[in-house]
Protein backbone atom coordinates (compact mmCIF):
# COMPACT_ATOMS: atom_id res chain seq x y z
CA UNK A 1 0.00 0.00 0.00
CA UNK A 2 2.50 2.54 -1.19
CA UNK A 3 1.48 6.12 -1.81
CA UNK A 4 1.98 8.16 -4.95
CA UNK A 5 3.48 11.58 -4.71
CA UNK A 6 2.72 14.05 -7.44
CA UNK A 7 5.22 16.84 -8.00
CA UNK A 8 5.03 19.12 -11.05
CA UNK A 9 4.28 16.89 -14.00
CA UNK A 10 5.84 13.83 -12.40
CA UNK A 11 4.44 11.10 -10.23
CA UNK A 12 6.62 9.09 -7.85
CA UNK A 13 5.90 6.03 -5.77
CA UNK A 14 6.97 6.37 -2.14
CA UNK A 15 8.52 3.27 -0.61
CA UNK A 16 6.98 2.04 2.59
CA UNK A 17 7.96 4.27 5.49
CA UNK A 18 9.75 6.66 3.15
CA UNK A 19 9.37 10.38 3.74
CA UNK A 20 8.26 12.76 1.01
CA UNK A 21 11.71 14.38 1.21
CA UNK A 22 13.51 11.07 0.72
CA UNK A 23 11.19 10.03 -2.08
CA UNK A 24 11.61 13.29 -3.99
CA UNK A 25 15.39 13.49 -3.57
CA UNK A 26 15.71 9.81 -4.52
CA UNK A 27 14.00 10.74 -7.77
CA UNK A 28 16.28 13.69 -8.41
CA UNK A 29 13.98 16.48 -7.24
CA UNK A 30 15.92 19.19 -5.42
CA UNK A 31 14.22 20.13 -2.14
CA UNK A 32 16.04 22.41 0.34
CA UNK A 33 16.73 20.53 3.55
CA UNK A 34 19.21 20.45 6.44
CA UNK A 35 18.47 18.70 9.75
CA UNK A 36 16.04 16.04 8.50
CA UNK A 37 14.71 15.86 12.06
CA UNK A 38 11.69 18.13 11.79
CA UNK A 39 13.45 21.03 13.46
CA UNK A 40 14.95 23.43 10.93
CA UNK A 41 11.91 23.74 8.66
CA UNK A 42 14.14 24.00 5.58
CA UNK A 43 12.09 21.32 3.80
CA UNK A 44 8.77 23.11 4.17
CA UNK A 45 6.42 22.10 1.35
CA UNK A 46 2.84 22.70 0.35
CA UNK A 47 0.21 19.96 0.06
CA UNK A 48 -1.84 20.76 -3.04
CA UNK A 49 -3.89 17.59 -2.62
CA UNK A 50 -4.09 14.74 -0.16
CA UNK A 51 -4.04 14.20 3.58
CA UNK A 52 -1.14 15.61 5.60
CA UNK A 53 -0.08 13.20 8.38
CA UNK A 54 -0.20 14.81 11.81
CA UNK A 55 3.51 14.27 12.47
CA UNK A 56 4.41 16.36 9.40
CA UNK A 57 2.87 19.48 10.96
CA UNK A 58 3.91 18.99 14.56
CA UNK A 59 5.33 22.23 16.03
CA UNK A 60 4.66 24.17 12.84
CA UNK A 61 3.41 27.72 13.27
CA UNK A 62 -0.42 27.85 13.02
CA UNK A 63 -0.15 30.14 9.98
CA UNK A 64 1.80 27.46 8.12
CA UNK A 65 -0.64 24.74 9.16
CA UNK A 66 -3.58 26.77 7.91
CA UNK A 67 -1.90 27.12 4.54
CA UNK A 68 -1.45 23.32 4.26
CA UNK A 69 2.30 23.52 4.71
CA UNK A 70 4.17 20.55 6.09
CA UNK A 71 7.70 19.29 6.70
CA UNK A 72 8.71 16.92 3.92
CA UNK A 73 11.26 15.10 6.11
CA UNK A 74 8.58 14.21 8.67
CA UNK A 75 5.88 13.34 6.15
CA UNK A 76 5.31 9.63 5.64
CA UNK A 77 2.28 9.78 3.36
CA UNK A 78 -0.78 7.83 4.41
CA UNK A 79 -2.29 8.14 0.94
CA UNK A 80 -1.61 9.78 -2.40
CA UNK A 81 -0.45 13.39 -2.21
CA UNK A 82 0.29 16.21 -4.61
CA UNK A 83 2.97 18.52 -3.30
CA UNK A 84 4.86 21.65 -4.31
CA UNK A 85 7.59 23.90 -3.00
CA UNK A 86 6.22 27.04 -1.34
CA UNK A 87 6.52 30.15 -3.43
CA UNK A 88 8.99 32.58 -1.99
CA UNK A 89 7.30 35.69 -0.76
CA UNK A 90 4.34 33.79 0.60
CA UNK A 91 6.02 33.00 3.90
CA UNK A 92 9.62 33.95 3.44
CA UNK A 93 11.27 37.27 4.05
CA UNK A 94 14.08 38.73 1.97
CA UNK A 95 16.88 40.06 4.13
CA UNK A 96 20.15 41.72 3.26
CA UNK A 97 23.49 41.32 4.97
CA UNK A 98 24.10 44.65 6.69
CA UNK A 99 27.11 43.95 8.92
CA UNK A 100 29.78 41.31 9.47
CA UNK A 101 32.36 41.21 12.22
CA UNK A 102 34.63 38.51 13.65
CA UNK A 103 33.95 38.01 17.38
CA UNK A 104 36.84 35.58 17.84
CA UNK A 105 38.96 33.38 15.58
CA UNK A 106 35.98 31.47 14.16
CA UNK A 107 32.73 33.11 15.21
CA UNK A 108 31.32 35.82 12.96
CA UNK A 109 28.56 38.21 13.91
CA UNK A 110 26.18 38.67 11.01
CA UNK A 111 23.46 41.28 10.96
CA UNK A 112 20.56 41.09 8.56
CA UNK A 113 18.16 43.86 7.61
CA UNK A 114 14.56 42.99 6.86
CA UNK A 115 12.07 45.22 5.01
CA UNK A 116 9.80 45.38 8.06
CA UNK A 117 10.68 44.79 11.75
CA UNK A 118 11.12 41.05 12.19
CA UNK A 119 8.98 39.61 14.95
CA UNK A 120 10.54 36.81 16.93
CA UNK A 121 11.43 35.97 20.50
CA UNK A 122 15.13 36.16 21.40
CA UNK A 123 16.25 32.54 21.66
CA UNK A 124 14.20 31.30 18.74
CA UNK A 125 15.93 30.28 15.54
CA UNK A 126 15.51 31.11 11.88
CA UNK A 127 16.52 29.29 8.75
CA UNK A 128 18.56 31.04 6.07
CA UNK A 129 18.23 30.01 2.45
CA UNK A 130 20.48 31.27 -0.31
CA UNK A 131 19.75 31.40 -4.02
CA UNK A 132 21.21 27.91 -4.49
CA UNK A 133 18.67 26.40 -2.10
CA UNK A 134 21.28 25.92 0.61
CA UNK A 135 19.58 26.05 4.01
CA UNK A 136 20.87 26.28 7.59
CA UNK A 137 19.33 27.26 10.90
CA UNK A 138 20.77 29.85 13.25
CA UNK A 139 19.65 31.11 16.64
CA UNK A 140 18.66 34.74 16.88
CA UNK A 141 20.96 36.57 19.29
CA UNK A 142 18.94 39.75 19.74
CA UNK A 143 15.45 41.17 19.74
CA UNK A 144 15.02 42.01 16.03
CA UNK A 145 11.71 43.75 16.57
CA UNK A 146 13.34 46.40 18.81
CA UNK A 147 16.77 46.52 17.14
CA UNK A 148 15.47 46.63 13.54
CA UNK A 149 18.00 43.97 12.49
CA UNK A 150 18.52 40.26 13.08
CA UNK A 151 21.80 39.30 14.72
CA UNK A 152 23.32 35.84 14.32
CA UNK A 153 26.56 34.31 15.63
CA UNK A 154 27.88 32.14 12.86
CA UNK A 155 30.60 29.64 13.58
CA UNK A 156 32.84 29.26 10.56
CA UNK A 157 33.42 25.58 9.87
CA UNK A 158 36.21 24.47 7.59
CA UNK A 159 33.81 22.56 5.37
CA UNK A 160 30.68 24.47 6.31
CA UNK A 161 28.69 25.28 3.19
CA UNK A 162 26.55 28.09 4.64
CA UNK A 163 29.32 29.50 6.81
CA UNK A 164 31.60 29.67 3.75
CA UNK A 165 28.80 31.37 1.86
CA UNK A 166 28.29 33.92 4.65
CA UNK A 167 32.03 34.49 5.08
CA UNK A 168 32.22 35.31 1.38
CA UNK A 169 29.02 37.33 1.26
CA UNK A 170 29.18 41.05 0.60
CA UNK A 171 27.26 43.67 2.51
CA UNK A 172 24.01 44.15 0.63
CA UNK A 173 23.78 40.54 -0.52
CA UNK A 174 20.34 39.06 -0.19
CA UNK A 175 19.14 35.95 1.64
CA UNK A 176 15.81 34.40 2.44
CA UNK A 177 14.77 34.13 6.09
CA UNK A 178 12.27 31.50 7.14
CA UNK A 179 10.84 31.02 10.59
CA UNK A 180 11.06 31.79 13.41
CA UNK A 181 10.77 28.53 15.31
CA UNK A 182 11.78 27.08 18.66
CA UNK A 183 10.38 27.17 22.16
CA UNK A 184 13.54 28.17 24.00
CA UNK A 185 12.76 31.76 24.96
CA UNK A 186 12.20 33.96 28.00
CA UNK A 187 8.67 34.30 29.28
CA UNK A 188 8.26 36.54 32.30
CA UNK A 189 4.92 34.87 33.22
CA UNK A 190 3.93 37.72 35.49
CA UNK A 191 6.60 37.01 38.04
CA UNK A 192 10.22 37.91 37.44
CA UNK A 193 11.87 36.82 40.65
CA UNK A 194 12.76 33.19 39.92
CA UNK A 195 16.39 32.12 39.50
CA UNK A 196 17.36 31.97 35.84
CA UNK A 197 20.24 29.78 34.70
CA UNK A 198 21.52 30.02 31.12
CA UNK A 199 24.11 27.52 29.93
CA UNK A 200 25.46 27.12 26.42
CA UNK A 201 28.46 25.79 24.54
CA UNK A 202 30.11 27.47 21.55
CA UNK A 203 27.66 29.59 19.56
CA UNK A 204 24.97 28.25 21.90
CA UNK A 205 25.78 31.57 23.54
CA UNK A 206 23.83 33.38 20.79
CA UNK A 207 20.28 32.48 21.86
CA UNK A 208 21.26 32.80 25.54
CA UNK A 209 22.63 36.29 24.90
CA UNK A 210 19.27 37.16 23.36
CA UNK A 211 17.36 35.61 26.25
CA UNK A 212 19.60 37.36 28.79
CA UNK A 213 19.04 40.77 27.27
CA UNK A 214 15.29 40.13 27.03
CA UNK A 215 15.17 39.14 30.71
CA UNK A 216 17.12 42.24 31.76
CA UNK A 217 15.00 44.49 29.52
CA UNK A 218 11.83 43.06 31.05
CA UNK A 219 13.13 43.75 34.54
CA UNK A 220 13.88 40.24 35.76
CA UNK A 221 14.63 40.62 39.48
CA UNK A 222 15.68 37.04 40.34
CA UNK A 223 19.32 35.98 40.14
CA UNK A 224 20.55 35.30 36.60
CA UNK A 225 23.59 33.10 36.02
CA UNK A 226 25.06 32.75 32.54
CA UNK A 227 27.55 29.97 31.76
CA UNK A 228 29.45 29.86 28.47
CA UNK A 229 31.37 26.66 27.80
CA UNK A 230 34.22 26.55 25.29
CA UNK A 231 37.22 24.31 24.62
CA UNK A 232 40.05 26.85 24.65
CA UNK A 233 40.43 30.40 25.93
CA UNK A 234 40.45 31.78 22.40
CA UNK A 235 36.99 30.31 21.80
CA UNK A 236 35.37 32.73 24.25
CA UNK A 237 33.60 35.64 22.63
CA UNK A 238 31.58 38.64 23.83
CA UNK A 239 33.53 38.00 27.02
CA UNK A 240 34.24 41.70 27.66
CA UNK A 241 30.65 42.72 26.89
CA UNK A 242 29.32 40.08 29.28
CA UNK A 243 31.77 41.07 32.03
CA UNK A 244 30.55 44.68 31.64
CA UNK A 245 26.91 43.61 31.68
CA UNK A 246 27.49 41.63 34.88
CA UNK A 247 29.18 44.66 36.45
CA UNK A 248 26.12 46.78 35.63
CA UNK A 249 23.52 44.34 36.98
CA UNK A 250 23.85 43.18 40.56
CA UNK A 251 21.63 40.13 39.91
CA UNK A 252 23.72 38.89 36.98
CA UNK A 253 26.59 36.44 37.30
CA UNK A 254 28.66 35.44 34.28
CA UNK A 255 30.86 32.34 34.36
CA UNK A 256 32.98 31.59 31.31
CA UNK A 257 34.04 27.91 31.39
CA UNK A 258 37.15 26.84 29.52
CA UNK A 259 37.61 23.09 29.24
CA UNK A 260 41.35 23.25 28.50
CA UNK A 261 41.91 26.33 30.63
CA UNK A 262 44.13 26.98 33.62
CA UNK A 263 42.97 28.10 37.06
CA UNK A 264 43.32 31.70 38.22
CA UNK A 265 42.65 33.37 34.90
CA UNK A 266 39.24 34.79 35.67
CA UNK A 267 37.22 31.90 34.27
CA UNK A 268 36.20 28.44 35.43
CA UNK A 269 38.76 25.92 34.19
CA UNK A 270 36.90 22.68 33.50
CA UNK A 271 33.65 21.27 32.22
CA UNK A 272 30.67 23.61 32.04
CA UNK A 273 28.47 20.83 33.50
CA UNK A 274 30.51 20.94 36.72
CA UNK A 275 30.20 24.71 36.98
CA UNK A 276 26.43 24.57 36.43
CA UNK A 277 25.85 21.71 38.88
CA UNK A 278 27.70 23.45 41.71
CA UNK A 279 25.58 26.58 41.14
CA UNK A 280 22.10 25.00 41.10
CA UNK A 281 20.03 27.35 43.27
CA UNK A 282 18.15 26.24 46.38
CA UNK A 283 14.82 27.30 44.79
CA UNK A 284 14.63 24.14 42.70
CA UNK A 285 10.87 24.32 42.21
CA UNK A 286 10.93 27.72 40.57
CA UNK A 287 14.36 27.93 38.91
CA UNK A 288 14.44 27.94 35.11
CA UNK A 289 17.30 26.51 33.08
CA UNK A 290 17.93 27.29 29.41
CA UNK A 291 20.34 25.06 27.49
CA UNK A 292 21.76 25.59 24.02
CA UNK A 293 24.58 24.10 22.01
CA UNK A 294 25.96 20.67 21.18
CA UNK A 295 23.31 17.91 21.56
CA UNK A 296 25.56 15.81 23.85
CA UNK A 297 25.93 18.76 26.20
CA UNK A 298 22.26 19.75 26.09
CA UNK A 299 20.91 16.24 26.66
CA UNK A 300 23.43 15.33 29.36
CA UNK A 301 22.99 18.63 31.19
CA UNK A 302 19.21 18.40 31.04
CA UNK A 303 19.25 14.98 32.68
CA UNK A 304 21.75 16.02 35.37
CA UNK A 305 19.80 19.14 36.24
CA UNK A 306 16.53 17.19 36.32
CA UNK A 307 18.03 14.55 38.63
CA UNK A 308 19.36 17.37 40.83
CA UNK A 309 15.75 18.39 41.38
CA UNK A 310 14.90 20.98 38.72
CA UNK A 311 11.37 20.65 37.38
CA UNK A 312 11.20 19.08 33.90
CA UNK A 313 8.82 21.81 32.74
CA UNK A 314 11.38 24.47 33.69
CA UNK A 315 14.23 23.10 31.62
CA UNK A 316 14.20 24.57 28.12
CA UNK A 317 16.50 23.30 25.43
CA UNK A 318 17.13 23.58 21.71
CA UNK A 319 19.99 21.30 20.78
CA UNK A 320 21.89 22.39 17.66
CA UNK A 321 21.42 19.66 15.11
CA UNK A 322 24.00 19.12 12.41
CA UNK A 323 22.92 19.24 8.79
CA UNK A 324 22.44 15.70 7.49
CA UNK A 325 22.83 14.80 3.86
CA UNK A 326 20.11 12.60 2.41
CA UNK A 327 21.29 9.02 2.11
CA UNK A 328 20.31 8.01 -1.38
CA UNK A 329 19.37 4.36 -1.42
CA UNK A 330 20.15 2.45 -4.58
Amino acid at each position, binding site marked *: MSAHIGYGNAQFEARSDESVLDCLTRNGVSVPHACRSGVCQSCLMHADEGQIPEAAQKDLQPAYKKQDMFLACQCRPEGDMRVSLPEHGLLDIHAIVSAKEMLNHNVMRVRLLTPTPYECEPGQYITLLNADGLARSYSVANNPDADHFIELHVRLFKDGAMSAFLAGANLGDSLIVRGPAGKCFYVAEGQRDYPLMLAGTGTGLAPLYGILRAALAQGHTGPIHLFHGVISEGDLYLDRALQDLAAQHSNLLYTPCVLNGTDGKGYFAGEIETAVMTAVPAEKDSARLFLCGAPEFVNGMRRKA*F*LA*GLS*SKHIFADPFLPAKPVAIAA
Partner: protein
Amino acid sequence: MNVPVKSLFDRLGGANAVNTAVDIFYRKVLSDDRVAPFFDNVDMDRQIPKQKAFLTMAFGGPNNYTGLDMRKGHKHLVARGLNDSHVDAIIELLGKTLKELGVPDSDIAEVAAIANSVRNDVLDR
Protein backbone atom coordinates in the same frame (compact mmCIF):
# COMPACT_ATOMS: atom_id res chain seq x y z
CA MET B 1 -28.72 11.36 49.96
CA ASN B 2 -26.31 9.19 48.07
CA VAL B 3 -22.77 10.48 47.79
CA PRO B 4 -21.32 9.27 44.50
CA VAL B 5 -18.18 7.22 44.95
CA LYS B 6 -15.19 9.06 43.54
CA SER B 7 -13.16 7.22 40.91
CA LEU B 8 -9.55 6.27 41.58
CA PHE B 9 -8.36 8.97 39.16
CA ASP B 10 -10.37 11.64 40.99
CA ARG B 11 -9.26 10.41 44.41
CA LEU B 12 -5.63 10.71 43.35
CA GLY B 13 -6.19 14.27 42.14
CA GLY B 14 -6.66 13.83 38.38
CA ALA B 15 -4.41 15.57 35.87
CA ASN B 16 -2.79 17.68 38.60
CA ALA B 17 -1.64 14.51 40.36
CA VAL B 18 -0.13 13.26 37.12
CA ASN B 19 1.77 16.52 36.67
CA THR B 20 3.08 16.38 40.23
CA ALA B 21 3.97 12.70 40.11
CA VAL B 22 5.67 12.62 36.73
CA ASP B 23 8.93 14.32 37.76
CA ILE B 24 9.23 12.34 41.00
CA PHE B 25 8.52 9.07 39.19
CA TYR B 26 10.79 9.71 36.21
CA ARG B 27 13.62 10.84 38.50
CA LYS B 28 13.33 7.52 40.35
CA VAL B 29 13.35 5.62 37.06
CA LEU B 30 16.48 7.41 35.79
CA SER B 31 18.25 6.84 39.11
CA ASP B 32 17.45 3.12 39.34
CA ASP B 33 20.21 0.90 37.94
CA ARG B 34 17.72 -1.88 37.15
CA VAL B 35 15.74 0.16 34.62
CA ALA B 36 17.77 3.32 33.90
CA PRO B 37 19.83 1.71 31.07
CA PHE B 38 16.64 1.39 28.99
CA PHE B 39 16.33 5.19 29.11
CA ASP B 40 19.96 6.04 28.36
CA ASN B 41 19.50 7.35 24.85
CA VAL B 42 15.99 8.61 25.30
CA ASP B 43 15.18 12.26 24.68
CA MET B 44 13.74 13.64 27.93
CA ASP B 45 11.52 16.09 26.08
CA ARG B 46 9.77 13.27 24.30
CA GLN B 47 9.78 10.98 27.30
CA ILE B 48 7.96 13.24 29.78
CA PRO B 49 4.70 13.29 27.74
CA LYS B 50 4.92 9.49 27.42
CA GLN B 51 5.40 9.12 31.16
CA LYS B 52 2.40 11.36 31.73
CA ALA B 53 0.31 9.19 29.43
CA PHE B 54 1.44 6.09 31.32
CA LEU B 55 0.66 7.61 34.73
CA THR B 56 -2.75 8.79 33.53
CA MET B 57 -3.53 5.24 32.45
CA ALA B 58 -2.17 3.70 35.66
CA PHE B 59 -4.15 6.22 37.74
CA GLY B 60 -7.33 4.98 36.07
CA GLY B 61 -7.73 8.15 34.01
CA PRO B 62 -8.83 8.69 30.42
CA ASN B 63 -6.35 7.20 27.98
CA ASN B 64 -6.05 5.94 24.46
CA TYR B 65 -3.63 3.13 25.17
CA THR B 66 -4.21 -0.05 23.23
CA GLY B 67 -2.50 -3.39 23.68
CA LEU B 68 -1.02 -2.93 20.21
CA ASP B 69 0.58 0.42 21.17
CA MET B 70 2.12 -1.23 24.21
CA ARG B 71 3.55 -4.03 22.11
CA LYS B 72 4.89 -1.76 19.37
CA GLY B 73 6.26 0.78 21.84
CA HIS B 74 8.29 -1.74 23.82
CA LYS B 75 9.30 -4.28 21.18
CA HIS B 76 12.79 -2.81 20.75
CA LEU B 77 13.24 -2.95 24.54
CA VAL B 78 12.11 -6.57 24.75
CA ALA B 79 14.79 -7.29 22.15
CA ARG B 80 17.27 -5.62 24.53
CA GLY B 81 16.24 -7.89 27.40
CA LEU B 82 13.20 -6.20 28.96
CA ASN B 83 11.53 -8.78 31.21
CA ASP B 84 9.27 -9.31 34.24
CA SER B 85 11.90 -8.03 36.69
CA HIS B 86 11.88 -4.63 34.96
CA VAL B 87 8.10 -4.39 34.99
CA ASP B 88 8.24 -5.27 38.72
CA ALA B 89 10.79 -2.49 39.27
CA ILE B 90 8.63 0.09 37.46
CA ILE B 91 5.56 -0.87 39.52
CA GLU B 92 7.67 -0.66 42.69
CA LEU B 93 8.94 2.83 41.76
CA LEU B 94 5.40 3.89 40.93
CA GLY B 95 4.30 2.74 44.40
CA LYS B 96 7.17 4.62 46.08
CA THR B 97 6.23 7.77 44.17
CA LEU B 98 2.63 7.61 45.36
CA LYS B 99 3.70 6.77 48.92
CA GLU B 100 5.81 9.95 48.91
CA LEU B 101 2.77 11.91 47.78
CA GLY B 102 0.75 10.54 50.71
CA VAL B 103 -1.54 8.23 48.73
CA PRO B 104 -3.16 5.50 50.88
CA ASP B 105 -1.97 1.91 50.41
CA SER B 106 -5.35 0.74 49.10
CA ASP B 107 -5.17 3.22 46.19
CA ILE B 108 -1.53 2.34 45.53
CA ALA B 109 -2.59 -1.31 45.22
CA GLU B 110 -5.26 -0.32 42.68
CA VAL B 111 -2.71 1.63 40.63
CA ALA B 112 -0.30 -1.30 40.76
CA ALA B 113 -3.04 -3.63 39.54
CA ILE B 114 -3.81 -1.40 36.54
CA ALA B 115 -0.10 -1.08 35.68
CA ASN B 116 0.21 -4.84 36.02
CA SER B 117 -2.68 -5.41 33.62
CA VAL B 118 -0.56 -4.29 30.65
CA ARG B 119 2.42 -6.50 31.61
CA ASN B 120 1.86 -9.10 28.89
CA ASP B 121 1.38 -6.46 26.21
CA VAL B 122 4.54 -4.61 27.28
CA LEU B 123 6.54 -7.83 27.26
CA ASP B 124 4.98 -8.81 23.92
CA ARG B 125 3.70 -12.24 24.88
